[in-house]
């Protein structure tokens, strides 16, 4: 066992491993939110959807002994939450942000209520694909155990990026998001498009929750999310509503989150609270560097209630 000492190499390794392990929920929630916001609505309730998805996935996986059925249940539950949000928001004078906050609390509360009996039992985990077989260092092998959901998320972000530019569905979502009037003139019904976009966004957030409870950290507790759903919503703005940007931002946050523990593990023990703030400092710097007083946020959908 000569290979147990990786020393300072542990830091880049932990950042790489952390980026792969921690980022997946961010990827799914932010892609979901990107679809919703591109259609002109904000769904802040995805934090609640994430927590409920985590619970639903874990509960179904425990009962059926199949993590894949759990995943489907989480996506289904997320779809319902998304459709509910989309349906309420089509009524006049309804504020989508307020509904989102209400759904965030509702989703978490409902998950805690139904999740009580599932804290103790153990569910089967989603499988990981070992990409580290070429290395005989166990730490590298562990860092390169990549969950299938991460790969699906990566592929999905490329597909979405392409689809927003090149497919009819993508263009419909974008025109509805940029101008309701133009969409109506084209014979599109903005409410229906937004309903579907919010539903799909919710389903993706539910899948993000399934990753939390069925892979990493891999258990259902009421504190499982610790605000990741909310951070992912913020990531969308950070990524300028670009799916590829969402993927990159999620990786960045995952890797930066691993920095604090990794530095402490190699003996850099001073000021760990500062290292834990690294992702947020990074966000601030990038936001300041890319902002401009002469134009509004590049890429922001015109119908979004925060840009109107």
């Amino acid at each position: 066992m000569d290979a147990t000492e990786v020393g300072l190499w542990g830091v880049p390794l932990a950042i790489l491993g952390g980026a792969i392990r921690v980022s997946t929920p961010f990827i799914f929630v932010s892609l979901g939110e990107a679809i919703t916001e591109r259609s002109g609505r904000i769904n802040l309730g995805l934090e609640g959807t994430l927590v409920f998805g985590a619970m639903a996935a874990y509960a179904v996986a425990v009962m059926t002994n199949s993590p894949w059925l759990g995943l489907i249940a989480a996506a289904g539950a997320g779809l319902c939450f998304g459709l509910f949000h989309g349906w309420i928001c089509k009524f006049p004078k309804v504020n989508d942000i307020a509904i989102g906050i209400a759904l965030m609390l509702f989703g978490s509360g409902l998950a805690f209520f139904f999740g009580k009996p599932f804290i103790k039992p153990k569910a089967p985990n989603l499988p990981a694909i070992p990409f580290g077989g070429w290395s005989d260092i166990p730490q590298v092998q562990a860092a390169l155990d990549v969950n299938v959901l991460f790969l699906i998320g990566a592929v999905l972000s490329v597909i979405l990026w392409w689809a927003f530019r090149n497919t009819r569905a993508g263009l419909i979502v974008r025109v509805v998001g940029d101008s309701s009037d133009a969409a109506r003139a084209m014979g599109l019904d903005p409410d229906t498009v937004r309903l579907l976009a919010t539903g799909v966004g919710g389903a993706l957030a539910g899948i993000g929750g399934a990753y939390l409870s069925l892979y990493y950290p891999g258990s259902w507790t009421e504190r499982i999310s610790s605000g990741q759903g909310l951070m992912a919503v913020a990531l969308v703005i950070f990524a300028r509503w670009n799916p590829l940007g969402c993927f990159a931002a999620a990786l960045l946050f995952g890797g930066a989150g691993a920095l604090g523990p990794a530095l402490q593990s190699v003996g850099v023990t001073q000021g760990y609270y500062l290292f834990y703030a690294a992702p947020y400092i990074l966000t601030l710097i990038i936001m300041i560097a890319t902002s401009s007083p002469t134009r509004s946020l590049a890429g922001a959908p015109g119908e979004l209630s925060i840009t109107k």
Partner: protein
Amino acid sequence: MTDRFMLSRRQLLKTSAAGAALGLASAAFPVSKAFAAAATVGFIYVGPKDDYGYNQAHAEGAAALKGIEGITVVEEENVPETVDVQKTMESMINLDGASLIFPTSFGYFDPHMLAMCKKFPDVQFRHCGGMWDKTKHPMNAGSYFGYIGMGQYLNGVVAGHTSKTKKLGFVAAKPIPQVLLNINSFLLGARSVDPAITCQVIFTGEWSLAVKEAEATNALVDQGADVITCHVDSPKVVVETAAGRGAFVCGYHANQSPLAPEKYLTGAEWNWAKVYKMFVDDLVAGTPLPNFTRGGLADGFVKMSPLGPAVGEAAHKQFDATLAEMMKGGFSVIKGPLKSNKGAVVATEGQAFPETAIELESMDYLVEGVVGSTA
């Protein structure tokens, strides 16, 4: 002032409503059961009460009271360490009629519980882990805690025998005295086996952050630690992640062996049932409740998980011998000559701090051999 007026009005309404209800009840059930001393006891938890950890340990203690005649237990979980806990206490007193309240989380003590003590002088409050001081705090307040550092010392003994890399890992929440004592005890237990052992500590900064705890555990295993323990509210994630990476684990707060039956060595557990029964017996008997309660393994406040299948012969022997020594009471984990990991002398030759030493409850150092920093 308006606040106080509102409250007294609410209390008035509540009392008259309760009176009316009582009248109705006695009219409906003429032969009502009379209790010698009916009392309601309130428990407040900072997290879910089945977290395989801190809150579960308290909830198991509360559950032990439910069989006692005349005692009603009310509980509320997931109460943040903010003004929310004051509202919870008020509603337990005003609506449930609680006469004894156990706010179990560290951050509830100051200022929240102390404010309630002033507001409700007839209600007794006992806090877990706080430092009650006769000169500063009201007489209806108090605190209780157990010398669980002893349990972490025993964890360390078993870990020291089991570790092959001679590196241990500790996932800690915040650098407060109780946590530091646990880290130091864990390492000193291991060093009683082999003085070359070191312990790497990672602070996550919060009591419950599932993803960060998993990352910290992975980072420790990456650096070669092969026995992991922790001091966070819910050790579930740490235990499962460490066992998943092939490391051994020592438990904390409650028994986590069902989560990793092969890799679980032993664990330091609370036995709050004993403490809560003691308080409630006093309450029923009408004797004044103690204000400052402490106890260790010998007093039954703390217990150890049964040893796991991976524990070897030598570890078993030394564990039993050390436990027997501790059961006599007054065992000293911190004894000289001992330096902190910054080189400062914390105990001189011949100096020893037994488990009861009050100095240990204001510990602000990590001992030599612990890799980590308190800030």
